[in-house]
C-alpha cells in the first residue's frame, strides 16, 4: 500500500463539479497552497468491508479562475474591489497507481495530499523497480528513475529520442543515460562490462567524452551527487575518425581532438571478402532502382575472385591498390561486352549497367579514403567494440552523406554479426545513432535499414540496445519506434507534436514539449502510465574544445601503440596480456 508520508500536507480536495474517474480527476487546491505540473499527489478512498484504496497520480494540468464572475469584464470590478469573487485553483490529476488494484473513483471532497519520500516513489512505481537508473530530477527536484528492465532487454529494450535539433539536447541526454548506466552500478557487472558505440554525426561535440568539463560548477556537481553519480568524464573512451582525405599515411581527420584518436578504414580485401559493396548503395532510392541485381552480382563476383595482394587485391590477374582503381576496373569490365555477363549475369541491359556505373563512379570521391589498398593491412583499423574501450566514438561529422551511410551500415552489420555469432546477450552493446530518420526512413528499404530493423526486433535478445535519436519520429520506420520500450521527447516542432507517434504524451504535456528548455525531456517508460518530466544535469564531460580540461592519460597513446609498452597488465576491456 502506498503510504501518505505526511498527513499534515493536504493540498486540496477532490472536485465534485467535474467527474472524478479512477484514471483522471480534478482537485480543488486549498487557498494558500499550490500545485504545479508534475507534482505527485495521493488520496485515499474508503470502501465498505475492504481496506481503503490509495490513488496516486501526477498533476497534468492546473487552472485558476474567478468564481462568482459572469462576464470577462467582471475581472476589473473584482480587481477594483467592488465585486466579491473567489480565486479558485484546480489541478487535473492523472492516476499513476491504484493500490490495491480496485479501480474506484476518488470520492469528491476527499483530501488530497502532496506525496513525498516513499509515497512519491510508490506513486511513480520507483519502489517496484529492482534496478533503477537515475536519469535526472523531476520538477520537484527529486531524482526520477528509469527501470533498467526496460533498457537492458530483460523486459524491453531500445530508446527513441525525438526533438528539434539544437534545443532538444537529444545526444546529451543519450550520453547522460549511458553515463548513468555505466556509473550508477544498478546494472551490476552488466553495467561495467557494457560497451557503447556512439556515432558522432554533427560537430566534434562527442569527441571529448573522456575530457573533464572545465565549466563544471558546484551546482552541477551537487546535481550529480543527488543522483548518486560521480561528476567525472567517461573513463574509457576510444575515438575513431576517418583518414584524412588525400593523405597516404592514414592519419585521422580531426581538428580539435589531437590525441587518442585512431583512424578507421577498410582494406580492399575486406571490402571484397565481407561483401561490403551493397553498403555503397545505401540510399533508400538506390533500392528502388533496377541495378540492385547488378550490385549483388558484382558483390558476389568480387567475393569469389578477388585475391589479397600486399594490402590491395588482385582480380582477373590485375593488381588493384585503391578504391578508385577498383571502381574503374569494375566499370571497365561491365562495359566490355565480353566480360559483362561474367560480372553481372546475362539478363542485364545496358541502361541498368550504366545506371550502376554512374553511381559507382560517383562514390569514388566519397569512399576513396575509407576503402584503402595502400595502408598496412595488419595495422588495426577496424571498429570493433569488443576489442575497443568501453565507449567507442565513431566520428562521421566530416564525411559526406554516402560515406556516413557506408560507415554506419558496415559497422552496425559487423557488430550485429559478431553478436549473433557469440549468441549471448552479454556484454550489452548500446548503439547511439542520431538522425535515425536518415538511416531508417519510414519509406523504402536499404541495407542499413535492414540492419537497424534487425537490431530493433532481435537486438533485445542479443544484447544490442539501440538509442536512436531523430528530429521527427514520424519519419522513422514505425517498427523501430514501436519496438522502443523507452520514448523520450525534448522540444518538439508544433506540427510534429500533433502526430500520432506522440500519442503517449497527454495534451498538456504535448503543449509543454513545444517550449521545453534544453535539458528538459519527457520520458515515457512502460510501467509508468504518464511520461515523466526530467531535467538532467549539464554534462560533466567536455562537449567542445573550449570547455575541455587536460586530456586523460590513456588518450595520450594512439592506436599504433594500442598495447602500452609500459603497462604491465592489459588495459581494462582489452585482451592484451603482458606484452612479451
Amino acid at each position, binding site marked *: 500500500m502506498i503510504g501518505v508520508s505526511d498527513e499534515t500536507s493536504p493540498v486540496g480536495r477532490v472536485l465534485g463539479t467535474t467527474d472524478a474517474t479512477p484514471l483522471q480527476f480534478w482537485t480543488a487546491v486549498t487557498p494558500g497552497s499550490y500545485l504545479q505540473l508534475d507534482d505527485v499527489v495521493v488520496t485515499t478512498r474508503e470502501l465498505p468491508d475492504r481496506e481503503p484504496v490509495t490513488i496516486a497520480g501526477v498533476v497534468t494540468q492546473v487552472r485558476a479562475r474567478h468564481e462568482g464572475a459572469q462576464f470577462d469584464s467582471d475581472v476589473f470590478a473584482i480587481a477594483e474591489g*467592488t465585486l466579491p469573487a473567489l480565486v479558485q485553483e484546480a489541478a487535473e490529476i492523472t492516476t499513476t497507481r491504484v493500490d490495491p488494484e480496485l479501480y474506484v473513483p476518488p470520492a469528491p471532497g476527499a483530501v488530497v495530499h502532496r506525496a513525498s519520500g516513499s509515497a512519491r516513489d510508490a506513486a511513480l512505481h520507483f519502489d517496484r523497480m529492482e534496478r533503477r537508473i537515475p536519469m535526472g530530477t523531476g520538477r520537484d527536484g527529486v531524482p526520477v528513475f528509469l527501470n533498467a528492465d526496460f533498457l537492458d532487454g530483460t523486459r524491453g529494450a531500445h530508446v527513441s529520442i525525438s526533438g528539434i535539433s539544437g534545443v532538444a539536447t537529444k545526444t546529451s541526454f543519450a550520453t547522460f543515460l549511458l553515463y548513468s548506466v555505466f556509473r550508477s552500478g544498478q546494472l551490476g557487472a552488466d553495467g561495467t562490462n557494457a560497451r557503447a558505440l556512439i556515432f558522432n554525426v554533427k560537430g566534434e561535440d562527442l569527441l571529448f567524452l573522456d575530457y573533464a568539463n572545465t565549466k563544471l560548477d558546484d551546482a552541477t556537481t551537487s546535481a550529480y551527487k543527488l543522483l548518486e553519480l560521480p561528476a567525472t568524464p567517461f573513463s574509457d573512451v576510444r575515438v575513431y575518425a576517418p583518414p584524412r582525405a588525400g593523405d597516404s599515411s592514414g592519419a585521422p581527420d580531426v581538428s580539435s581532438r589531437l590525441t587518442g584518436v585512431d583512424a578507421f578504414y577498410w582494406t580492399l580485401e575486406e571490402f571484397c571478402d565481407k561483401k561490403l559493396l551493397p553498403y555503397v548503395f545505401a540510399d533508400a532510392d538506390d533500392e528502388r532502382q533496377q541495378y540492385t541485381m547488378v550490385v549483388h552480382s558484382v558483390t558476389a563476383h568480387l567475393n569469389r575472385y578477388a585475391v589479397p595482394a600486399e594490402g590491395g587485391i588482385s582480380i582477373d590477374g590485375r593488381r588493384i591498390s585503391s578504391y578508385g582503381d577498383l571502381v574503374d576496373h569494375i566499370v571497365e569490365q561491365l562495359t566490355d561486352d565480353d566480360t559483362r555477363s561474367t560480372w553481372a549475369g546475362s539478363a542485364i541491359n545496358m541502361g541498368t549497367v550504366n545506371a550502376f556505373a554512374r553511381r559507382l563512379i560517383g562514390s569514388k570521391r566519397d569512399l576513396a579514403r575509407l576503402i584503402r589498398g595502400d595502408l598496412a593491412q595488419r595495422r588495426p583499423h577496424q571498429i570493433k567494440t569488443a576489442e575497443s574501450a568501453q565507449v567507442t566514438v565513431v566520428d562521421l561529422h566530416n564525411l559526406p552523406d554516402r560515406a556516413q551511410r557506408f560507415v554506419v551500415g558496415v559497422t552496425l552489420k559487423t557488430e550485429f554479426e559478431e553478436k549473433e555469432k557469440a549468441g549471448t546477450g552479454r556484454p550489452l552493446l548500446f548503439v547511439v545513432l542520431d538522425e535515425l530518420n536518415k538511416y531508417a526512413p519510414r519509406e523504402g528499404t536499404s541495407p542499413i535499414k535492414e540492419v537497424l530493423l534487425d537490431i530493433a526486433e532481435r537486438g533485445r535478445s542479443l544484447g544490442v540496445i539501440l538509442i536512436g535519436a531523430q528530429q521527427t519520429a514520424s519519419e522513422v520506420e514505425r517498427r523501430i519506434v514501436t519496438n522502443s520500450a523507452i520514448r523520450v521527447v525534448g522540444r518538439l516542432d508544433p506540427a510534429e507534436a500533433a502526430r500520432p507517434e506522440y500519442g503517449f504524451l497527454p495534451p498538456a504535456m504535448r503543449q509543454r514539449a513545444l517550449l521545453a528548455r534544453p535539458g528538459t525531456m519527457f520520458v515515457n517508460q512502460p510501467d509508468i502510465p504518464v511520461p515523466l518530466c526530467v531535467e538532467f544535469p549539464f554534462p560533466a564531460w567536455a562537449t567542445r574544445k573550449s570547455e575541455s580540461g587536460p586530456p586523460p592519460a590513456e588518450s595520450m597513446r594512439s592506436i599504433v601503440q594500442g598495447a602500452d609498452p609500459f603497462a604491465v597488465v592489459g588495459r581494462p576491456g582489452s585482451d592484451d596480456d603482458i606484452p612479451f
Partner: protein
Amino acid sequence: MTRMFVDAWDPSYGSSFEGGGEEGPASQSSAQVDTDVEVPAAEWAPIDVSTAIRRPDVVFLVDGVRRNDAGLWTEEEDGTSYAGLAASFAAGVVRCDLARGSAELVDARVGRGLFTASPSAGDVQAGSVRYEVHRVSGTGEASKLPAAVQPSLTALEIDISATARQHEDLLVVDGPLRNRRHLPRTIGYVKTQQKQYLPAALTAVVTSLRPGQRTPVFHIGTVWGGWSWYLRLPGGSGAPWSGIVRVECSPDLTPDQAIELAGLSGATLPRFASSPYKDPRAPQNLVPIAGLERRLRGMLGDSRVLHRALTLATFRDRVHP
C-alpha cells in the same frame, strides 16, 4: 409627442417603481414630509458631489436572498389541512476594500424554515438539512406564506450586519433600514420607489437630477421614517425615474450627520452602479450586491435536490410515522 423609454429592469422584477407611470411613483404617500432640512423647499436644486468629501475606503454591503423550496400541505387529526412553505434564505456581508482593491464575503449565514399555520407540524429533516418550523398566526393561506419568510430573513440580515465593522467605514443595507437604524454609519438603499414622498413641485428636482447628483435631505415622519434623499446612479436609460434610488438613514441622527451621510452616499454609491447588459436590474442593483446575491444563492443549495429531499422526507414520515 411623448418620449418613450424602455425600462432597464427585467419585466419579471417589476418596474423601477411599482405601479408604473412615466412621471412618478404610483401612490402619493400620506406621510408628513419636512423638506426644509438641508435647504428651504423653495431653493431645492440638484446637489453635486462635494470635492471636500473623503470617500470611505471600506464599504460594507448587506443583503439577503430567499427561495421557496417547496409548497406543502398538512393533514391534521381532525381532517383539516394547512398550507406550508419550505423556504431557504441567506444573508451575507461583503466588505469592499476600495483602497486595496478586494471585495470579499465577510460573513454569510443560511437559514431554512417551514412556514405554516398548522398547530401540529414539526421540524422536517430533509437529507442533511433541517427545516425549522415557524408557526404563522391566522389562517395561514398559501398566498400569505411567502411574506411570512421576510421577518426571518430580516432578522438574519440584522444579525449579520453587526459583524466586522471598523472605523470610518460605511454600511449599505439593501432595502429600507426599518429596525436596523441603531447601526452606526449605516444607510438604507431603496431600489424601488413605491411611494411618492415629495410634493409635485419638488419631484421635478428628482427627475432633473443628473447621474451622481442628489436631492437635498428631507425628513419622513412615519414610524419607519427618518432622513432621506434621492440619488441618480449613472448608467440609466435617461427616463425621468431611471437610475433613481432613495437613500435613508436613522432618524436618531442629527440633521448635520444625515447631510454628511448623504454626501458620502453620493460619492460612494455611483461607483457601484451596475451596467444593463450584466444585470437585469441595472443600474440600481449594485455590483457588490449582485455578486453577493449570486454567492448567497449558491449557498442555498440546489433547489431540485432540496425539493426531492423534502418529498422523500415527508413520504417517509407518512409511511413510518
